[in-house]
């Protein structure tokens, strides 16, 4: 489909892809890093990583986990917000280009 391939050079399409890449990488790093950091700390510093939590109160391990779940939910909502507000602008541009090309051909 040569008409479709031509869209790759379209600035609106390139902008869309660039924005998606950026947001995808940032969100994935935000999602994975605290979780894997927790495992890393546990493996390298043994229980030391949890000492600051345990020193306060045993319950804080659970509260920390609960907050982490809401953090993942917030990231999920952020993904939808970013995509709906920033990706869709570029998407609309791409659709206009597609329509123009369809009418041309």
């Amino acid at each position: 489909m040569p008409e479709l391939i031509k869209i790759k050079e379209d600035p609106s399409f390139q902008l869309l892809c660039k924005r998606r890449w950026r947001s995808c990488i940032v969100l994935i790093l935000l999602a994975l890093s605290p979780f894997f950091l927790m495992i890393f700390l546990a493996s390298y510093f043994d229980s030391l990583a949890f000492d600051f939590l345990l020193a306060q109160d045993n319950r804080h391990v659970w509260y920390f986990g609960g907050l982490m779940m809401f953090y993942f939910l917030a990231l999920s909502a952020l993904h939808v917000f970013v995509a709906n507000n920033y990706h869709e602008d570029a998407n609309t541009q791409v659709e206009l280009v597609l329509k123009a090309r369809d009418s041309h051909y």
Partner: protein
Amino acid sequence: MTFTYAATIFLITSLFLIFVSKKMATRTKSAADFYSSRGDISSFQNGLAMAGDYISGAAIFGMSSLIFIAGCDGFFYAMSFVLGWTVKQILITERARNIGRFTVADIISYRLNRGSVRAFTSLSTLAIILIYLIVQFVAVAQVFQFVLAIGYSQALLAAGLAVVVFVSLGGFVASTRVQIIKIYALFLVVGFLCGFLMSEYDFSLSKIFNSANAAGGIRMAVPLGLLEDPVSQLSLAVGLIFGTSGLPHTTTRYFSVMNAKQARQSAMVATGVIVLFFLMISLVGVVAVARLHLDDIDGLDWVSTSEILGTNMVILLLSRTVVGNLFLGFIAAITFFATLTVIAKLVSTGASSVSRDIYVHVILRRRVEAMVEAKVARLGALLIGVLALCFSVVFDQQNLTFLVSLAFGVAAASNFPVLLLSLYWRGLTSRGALVGGLVGLISSLGLIIASKLIWVDLLKNPEALYPYDHPALFAMLLAFATAWLFSITDRSDKAKRERLAFDEQYIRSQIG
């Protein structure tokens, strides 16, 4: 009989829910009806249905029991399940929605060799679904065992019969609407249970955790498993987080909505529902530590202590002990129905794989009438169901969440690398996808067989060949490495065409 009252309520409520499913069922008119909805449901409804597919017997029964047994380490599973869903939303949802149609194989084979890649994807899909189904059958059988006071083998037969009745009445076809009803019903009973439990502690989380810490000891305060064996926990986390992206039965829900915007909104709704549910079920587990004692368990003369402690029925035991037999009947019926709907969804996804991927695209290699395809799908459903039921006989002593994490491990090592590379890497060829995927599938299954679960507990060998419980960390890396190696060394004309076709797939995946 102590539980006659609960058993009666259980049977009446279950029959009512199955009757409601029958009313919801519509006749199968086309392949689109059969595999997914026709794009006529809202993103909120689709999100509820997605969460319904994800919240299985493992989450309902296994999670609270795992926290009861393992304390903080059980909660680690819950966090991984939620993170896995978020990662899937960010990495896979939109692109998969834009280029897929009915099954995971449709996405992967968009620009790759349809025959071989479809054959691999359907094989891995069936392997994942089989393990997942075993878990659900064990869950349903243990509910029957607990509430109806019958032996495990009789309970398993009753579970098989219940699935046949449910599927033949149409719960299979109307799965989207049924999943929505399931989520509402599940939140109603588990929410009520949490409210009741919290009222016993004056709605104070501090009081609950103080009681649980006093009864549960060090396991409630420190994640012992994470500290003692971080490699195993890392492998578990990798399996749960990336395996979610490779699960075939939840991915197909993206095709039920009209566009990518609705798909990502559905995923967000599902994340919200999953977070709330896992928090509620974790609370049930924590209260169980504080409230359940051996005396409660010994009171059940037909269920041995090890069966309850080692496995899964903590939520039902807590309902009976704290709230009473009437509520036990209701919660058992609704959780049974919830598990039944997941079985229906799993069986329908497996059946789609057999009929569409294997029968139509690999064996016949030509289009067939929708009703012929549906007939093959029903035959496939029967075979998958019987196979899973047979395997369920030997896993009654295992925790369901642990068992389902193995299915996630297989998905992380087989479907996920191929799906991710096909969506994001131009260099992936059919040869790389096939070899990488098969290596991931075979190595993950091999490591499960060599682990303690099968090698020691089932085959009665003195020591496990693989020292960890979860295969994903090693098998997934191996799958990525072989997919990369066999792709970059592929110099064939076909490989060149497939690399060129990436541009078209990429544009389609971005704009739908």
